[in-house]
């Protein structure tokens, strides 16, 4: 049993970048009791304190994150202050958001053995544990692999396995689905069922709620650092769509998305044409093979498909980042060479930190301009709601603001084609809509937007057209400006979840 008694926590101001100093995930007067064997969902908008709350349970507060901490958290009657992280790690297992950063080892088997090794268990016991966990969570096919060869979904499963190898009673998961596609999420759902059936206590903080239905039996809704709602599963499911949206939460099921308000009609006869594409990474089979495809110019197009379908590779080739790309890209007027495409396209990367270089937001925009024009730069910043931050360090901004800086510098460089690589992974409803409106803004000003994404609601909000890639080939492409197209899109996403139901 976990008990929080009047817990308040705030991070030290110096530990936060400029933009987050106001809210910063602080908690105020949290009191709650979490019973053994329950599955608790923590939800709320970004910055509401969900992540901070998970840190109370796994001991990172107060043992890793410093800050002002009052009240107490009791794990089975013991104050977490009196336990070390080492002690807590026997009782509470943690899984984090980013599958790339939570591995300590470079191969999967060592990763599963990592926890038990740290606790000094004898070698044959550790081996036994690895075997057992692999069997229980169906991880056998992943054993003895390099973590660099795993997909995001596989990494997240190994992360769970690694936590499970210590055999804790409680699991704390912080937005584990952020970087997964619908198929991997369905798979991950199975794993959560397996843990739940072992009678474990599970606490999960999440934005995407649809994959958790039928799993959670209690929902804690946080707002501004306080528990604002404490629901049973039935109560929570009974909330109307409107109530849920007011709370800033994503939908509980994908089917309800067909009513989402779409973007204006933008498709006309102007198109970009891609022909005779063939691409392979060194020493690997062909990853991309497209005879001919088109997508509308001046509109937003979503690129969908499962992990490994070649979506990101396609985007990279289009941008001219891959030298061995064979094929042509053209619009009405001309065919563009690779070097020209580097100047034609601008990609807003999944990890936007990679593309911000300078010491202030304004410099960042100026860097993209052919000739520096401060007035024009400020205009662009204003369009993107960034003017108050013009002197801030780009890396000190929040994730959404950074994304907008990248888009603003794309606009400043006057590129006609702007690509987004999974721009909404890990975003709450409000921020997802914000990105959607940025994409809409790009398309409304006559530029072409291409979005690689797994987020159906986001696509419905801002895209006009869909390119569906599978195994490096275009499986289908269609307009979603009519209801047929929209239903076809939703069906693709729903299929993944249904496949999973049939195997249950």
């Amino acid at each position: 049993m976990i008990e929080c008694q009047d817990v308040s926590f705030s991070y030290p101001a110096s530990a936060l970048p400029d933009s987050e100093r106001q809210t910063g995930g602080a908690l105020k007067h949290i009191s709650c009791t979490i019973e053994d064997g329950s599955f608790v969902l923590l939800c709320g908008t970004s910055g509401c304190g969900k992540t901070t709350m998970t840190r109370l349970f796994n001991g990172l507060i107060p043992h890793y994150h410093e800050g002002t901490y009052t009240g107490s958290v009791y794990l089975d009657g013991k104050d977490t202050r009196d336990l070390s992280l080492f002690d807590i790690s026997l009782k509470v297992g943690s899984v984090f958001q980013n599958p790339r950063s939570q591995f300590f080892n470079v191969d999967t088997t060592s990763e599963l053995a990592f926890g038990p090794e740290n606790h000094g268990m004898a070698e044959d016991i550790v081996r036994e544990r690895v075997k057992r966990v692999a069997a229980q969570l169906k991880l056998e096919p992943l054993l003895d692999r390099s973590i660099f060869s795993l997909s995001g979904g596989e990494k997240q499963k190994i992360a769970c396995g690694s936590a499970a190898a210590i055999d804790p009673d409680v699991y704390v998961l912080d937005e584990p689905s952020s970087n997964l596609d619908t198929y991997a999420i369905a798979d991950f759902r199975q794993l959560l069922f397996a843990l739940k059936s072992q009678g474990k206590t599970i606490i999960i903080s999440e934005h995407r709620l649809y994959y958790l239905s039928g799993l959670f039996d209690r929902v804690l809704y946080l707002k501004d650092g306080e528990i604002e709602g404490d629901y049973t599963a039935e109560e929570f499911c009974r909330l109307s769509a409107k109530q849920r949206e007011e709370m800033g939460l994503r939908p509980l099921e994908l089917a309800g998305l067909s009513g989402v308000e779409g973007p204006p009609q933008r498709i006309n006869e102007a198109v970009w044409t891609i022909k005779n594409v063939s691409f392979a990474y060194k020493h690997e089979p062909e990853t991309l093979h497209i005879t001919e495809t088109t997508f509308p110019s001046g509109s937003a197009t979503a690129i969908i498909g499962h992990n490994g379908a070649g979506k990101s590779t396609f985007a990279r080739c289009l941008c001219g980042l891959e030298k061995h790309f064979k094929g042509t890209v053209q619009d009405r007027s001309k065919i563009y060479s690779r070097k020209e495409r580097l100047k034609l396209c601008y990609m807003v990367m999944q990890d936007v930190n990679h593309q911000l270089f300078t010491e202030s937001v304004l410099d960042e925009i100026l860097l993209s301009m052919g000739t520096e024009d401060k007035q024009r730069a400020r205009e662009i910043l204003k369009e993107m709601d960034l003017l108050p931050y013009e002197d801030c360090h780009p890396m000190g901004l929040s994730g959404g603001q950074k994304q907008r800086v990248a888009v603003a510098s794309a606009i400043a460089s006057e590129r006609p084609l702007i690509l987004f690589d999974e721009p909404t992974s890990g975003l709450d409803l409000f921020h997802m809509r914000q990105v959607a409106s940025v994409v809409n803004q790009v398309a409304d000003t006559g530029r072409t937007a291409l979005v690689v994404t797994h987020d159906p609601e986001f696509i419905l909000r801002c895209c006009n057209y869909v390119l569906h890639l599978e195994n490096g080939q275009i499986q289908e492409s269609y307009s979603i400006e009519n209801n047929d197209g929209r239903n076809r899109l939703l069906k693709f996403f729903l299929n993944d979840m249904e496949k999973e139901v049939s195997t249950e």
Partner: protein
Amino acid sequence: MSRELLASQKNNSGILLDPRTKLAVLITIAVFILGGSYEGVMQYYIIALAAIPLLLLLAARKWKGAVLYILIFGGSLCLEMFGLSRLTGVANYIAVAVVGILLRFTPSVVMGYFVVTTTTVSEFVAAMERLHLPQQITIPMSVMFRFFPTVAEEWSAIGDAMRMRGVRFGGGKASAILEYRIVPMMICSVKIGEELSQAALTRGLGGPVKRTNICKLGFHVQDVIFLLICLGAFAAQIYVLAARG
């Protein structure tokens, strides 16, 4: 993946050696070939030592590495034996420096290459633990090897972003380019590092008990042979020194 410094996946071809044996060979080569002991009987012994990396590469079917090694090392040797005396002036000066350095560094570099491509991180760390290195060294070491590919990934992603934004060398901005590349790389790496620490600590790293390791290590016949060759080198050197003084 070529960006790894140590392998992340097992590669079971060629002569399987314990990581400790590989290290012993590497150190022996570093001491005698790089250290420049070429007196008396050592002249012949170092040729045997220089042949070890070649043998190991061939056995592991790393043809490309083996051919490159033969070309560079053999080429330098030929140049040194037959070419140097014919060159004069600046050409001689440069050739002497280049040949001297290549001859002495290549065996050591190639042996290093063999070690890092055939040893996994877990094996290497396990070997270090068996050699009784304290946890204060082995823990940072495993983090470091784990982190090389990650930092390299960040590095190349940032390079892509720079190409896309048209930020290039030249135009009197060389220092700015370095700054643009190093700073985001460090910020991203430090953030990943923070997350890595949290993930490791919540799984009990750094506790008061001694870590165990499931990695299987052990000496076999081939290890014994190579270790004897290494010991022989030290014995021969002692003999040479004793004979001299």
